[in-house]
């Protein structure tokens, strides 16, 4: 490591030294999840009519439970409007949750004995999709990065020094970029600044809410590589929210698929991409664009729009668009199962549960057929 890295401060001061494998901030040991979410729920009320009464509720996040393992990257995918960003904001406590609990490394958030919001926000940071709107247009970027550290009591000069080092760390030369305003930077550069801003508090968990979605492919690839490097260097854990399945496949260790505010499937990345269990996951994977024109998707894997989250279908929420829907799907909501096992491949589908009574229950669903690439190879031969 370089000379700069040797200037490690005391525990209270975030330092840029590489975080050693035995992270001193780690409280519960490697086996304890860094974040556990239990039955998280958020309904947005819709007001209207006479006297602004509550007319209905949008079930944005409905009974979501999962755990994030230390050091992993958990990909979160789903159509727009499925509650991905609401989930991110709920985890950051930027919007109040209606029900459910969030536990950060053994400490529940809120409550008399729990972790305070301030503490949580030192440990958990978020990068938003809109790199431009995430930066104050009237502040030089060094000040934007230093702001968070100053909020947590760092002296102005120390915070600026930290900000410059972070700029260097995210690949922007501080003497060239530090004094600039956001409008003098490109989209990719701005997103690097946002990542530096999030890192200024020395967090352990970083939520990336569509962080590379607005960037073009080559810049997005650079930022992804930067994220991989930073994760190693600072011993970070990522929750990577995206609608881009290729990007999620590249960066994630495990993937969580959301549909209409609920988790439909969660599994290690190779497992879910090779053997998706839930029909929705299969449809999502089939909808990816092929690189090879001969391998293109000719039939729409999924028809129709997602149902209205104000009034979701009974039973399984996906049944209105599912090719395998049966009576049981309308009456009984499928359960995901215990999501605490990190290696488990869980799907909230009656077909994945041998005892469900679905005619195809327990049948091993064939991988996305025919296998990608074989069709093109056959055509070429």
């Amino acid at each position, binding site marked *: 490591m370089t000379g700069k890295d040797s200037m490690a401060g005391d525990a209270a001061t975030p330092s840029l030294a590489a975080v050693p494998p035995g992270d001193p901030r780690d409280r519960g040991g490697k086996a304890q999840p860094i974040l556990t979410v239990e039955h998280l729920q958020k309904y947005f009320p819709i007001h209207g009519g006479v006297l602004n009464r509550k007319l209905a509720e949008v079930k944005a996040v409905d009974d979501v439970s999962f755990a994030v393992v230390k050091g992993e990257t958990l990909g979160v995918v789903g159509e727009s409007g499925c509650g991905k960003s609401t989930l991110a904001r709920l985890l950051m406590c930027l919007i109040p949750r209606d029900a459910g609990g969030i536990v950060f490394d053994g400490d529940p958030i809120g409550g008399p004995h729990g972790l305070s919001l301030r503490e949580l926000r030192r440990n958990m940071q978020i990068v*938003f999709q809109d790199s431009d709107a995430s930066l104050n247009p009237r502040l030089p970027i060094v000040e934007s990065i230093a702001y968070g550290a100053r*909020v947590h009591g760092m002296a102005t000069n120390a915070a600026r020094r930290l900000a410059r080092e972070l700029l260097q760390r995210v690949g922007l030369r501080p003497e060239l970029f530090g004094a600039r305003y956001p409008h003098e930077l490109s989209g990719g550069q701005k997103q690097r600044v946002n990542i530096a801003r999030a890192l200024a508090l020395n967090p352990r968990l970083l939520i990336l809410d569509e962080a590379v979605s607005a960037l073009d492919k080559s810049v997005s690839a650079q930022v992804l590589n930067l994220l991989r490097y930073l994760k190693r260097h600072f011993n970070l854990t990522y929750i990577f929210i995206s609608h881009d399945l290729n990007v999620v496949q590249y960066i994630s260790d495990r993937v969580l698929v959301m549909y209409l505010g609920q988790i439909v499937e969660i599994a290690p990345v190779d497992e879910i991409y090779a053997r998706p269990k839930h029909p929705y996951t299969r449809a999502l994977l089939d909808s990816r664009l092929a690189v090879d024109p001969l391998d293109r998707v000719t039939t729409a894997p999924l028809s129709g729009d997602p149902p209205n989250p104000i009034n979701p279908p009974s039973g399984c929420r996906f049944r209105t668009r599912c090719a395998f829907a049966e009576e049981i799907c309308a009456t009984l909501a499928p359960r995901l199962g215990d999501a605490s096992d990190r290696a488990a491949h869980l799907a909230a589908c009656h077909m994945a549960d041998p005892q469900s009574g679905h005619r195809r229950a327990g049948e091993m669903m064939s991988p996305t057929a025919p296998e990608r690439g074989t069709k093109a190879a056959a055509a070429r031969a």
Partner: protein
Amino acid sequence: MTDATFGLPLANEDSGLPAKTKPRGYWQTVGRRLRHDYVTLFFLGLIALIVVAAIFAPAIAPLDPNKSSMAYRLKPIGFKNFLLGTDELGRDMLSRLIYGGRMSLMMGLVPVALATGIGGFLGLVAGFCGGWVNALIMRLMDVFYAFPSVLLAVAISGTMGGGIANGLLALTLVFIPPLCRVSEAATTQIRSRDFVEAARASGASALSIILAHVLRNVLAPVLIYASSLISVSILLAAGLSFLGLGVEPPTADWGLMLSTLRQSIYIQPAVCALPGVAIFLTSLSFNLVSDGLRQAMDIRA
């Protein structure tokens, strides 16, 4: 700094750009842009001239503005040593115009400054808090909006009686609602931006977010709007004086002068128009400077 890349390529070595060592602040940039705007500079100079004349009125005015003379009533421009003629009581017009500028500038600047402070603050609170606080403040402002501003000013100073203090108060009350609205709109828009969310996510308090992030974004639109209100305020003040609700008669004031001279418009039209010309030039200057300021401050168009 050879070891500084940490194995990663520095992605953004745009070689064409000079290294910026010192940040050029926002106001520095505004100043640089204003330097090339000659129209704004010219009218800024005119305002400076009027301000200097008003401040040093006793030293500049050739004669006593209140000394009347029955012999020299309503003399034309250039008569003997009355450079701009005399009014209906034989007082020197030039001296009265210079002294009247004091009153007009005060009536233009003080109510707008007060209203910017009060209205801007109320709008900031309404916009940042949202919810019922916003509803309460903004509906209260809507009550004032129900009346045309001239009528409102006349009604307030009419009920409270004439005099400079009441005139200032009336004008301040008239300008609070529009400034509050501009400030509220800007604050609401800024509050929903991701950087405010990001600041909240870093654990900052509401006060810290307002001071560090919201205020400096709201300031520009509010100041620009306020500067455009100065000329309105001067005109309204002149109107109040014209109606006898502002300044009391012996004091020199452009609006009042216009009012008392209007009976002599057929005898000395040029002289009677002079206070109007002064009002026109001053409010035009403020308007154009406000325009130039808006262009210079609107850096991220």
